[in-house]
């Protein structure tokens, strides 16, 4: 399947959850916000949401300081 991640097309193998994708990208799930088809997800839902062909994701990673 092909998803759009942060504006770029990306080939992925199904089945793949949001949590799987975060792990594949080597991101820390505690430090990201994920918008899946224009809905921002709660962290507890990452492992429960399967990705489908054509899905659009924005993954935003945060660093500390403020």
């Amino acid at each position: 399947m092909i998803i759009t991640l942060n504006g770029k097309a990306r080939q992925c193998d199904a089945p793949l959850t949001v949590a799987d994708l975060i792990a594949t990208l080597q991101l820390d799930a505690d430090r990201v916000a994920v918008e899946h088809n224009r809905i921002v997800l709660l962290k507890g839902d990452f492992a429960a949401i399967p990705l489908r062909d054509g899905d659009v994701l924005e993954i935003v990673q945060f660093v500390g300081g403020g």
Partner: protein
Amino acid sequence: MQIEINERPTEIAAGTTLAQLRDAVKPEADLCIRNGHPEREDVPLAPGDRVVFIRRGEIPAAEDLEALLAARHTPGVHARIKSATVGIAGCGGLGSAIAVALARTGVGNLILADFDLVEPSNLNRQQYFVDQIGLPKVLALRDNLARINPYVRVTAHNERLTPENIPARFAAVEVMVEAFDAADQKAMLAQVFLNKVPGKPLVMGSGMAGFGPSNTVVTRRAATNLYLIGDGETAARPGEGLMAPRVGIAAHHQANAVLRLLLGEEPA
């Protein structure tokens, strides 16, 4: 002829001088500002002159103060933002500076939340004073904002924000600001606010530690309702601390993004 006295249009007799007007309007004034400059000598007034009479150290009367404070606000902008409500989660280096900027701009309603106390180490970048050490940040900030612009209505929540209380605390905001320190708390606020209070913009900060180049701090739209400010990578860590200049740059990017959103403009 018509002039402005203390920012209000007023009709006066032609040929009136500045000293005559002061004696009639505010004889106790010890400063006469005409068209933006203090006048030491008496001068004849001309139509359209803008005159402000000040007694040093005196707080102007309530009916004059709001007009005086609003004198440099852009017409139309002030009316729009005076009725606006903005939430600020975290009142540290980012949040305190953002609150000060928005209060000076004239945003009418601010909802502040922080559980922390003012510590000496905060004073390297946060908008507090030595005599406020030990006070809850939200209460110290509310006092400081009242000294800047008493017409801002400030709601202060002296508590830790959690996934449970965030939706209720900030349900009424038009624009939300994330100003936390810890990356996992930034992520938590983004998830909860954007998921539970949908359709409202969130302005966040990420990456403003150290003294790297100013121009690497940018404003960008990172998701539908998420605006992200910072260089995206410079985390606070030993050897790369948070400092007033770059934290201030990011905070004012955030404040300007809030202002643009309130005025219907795209921040990035």
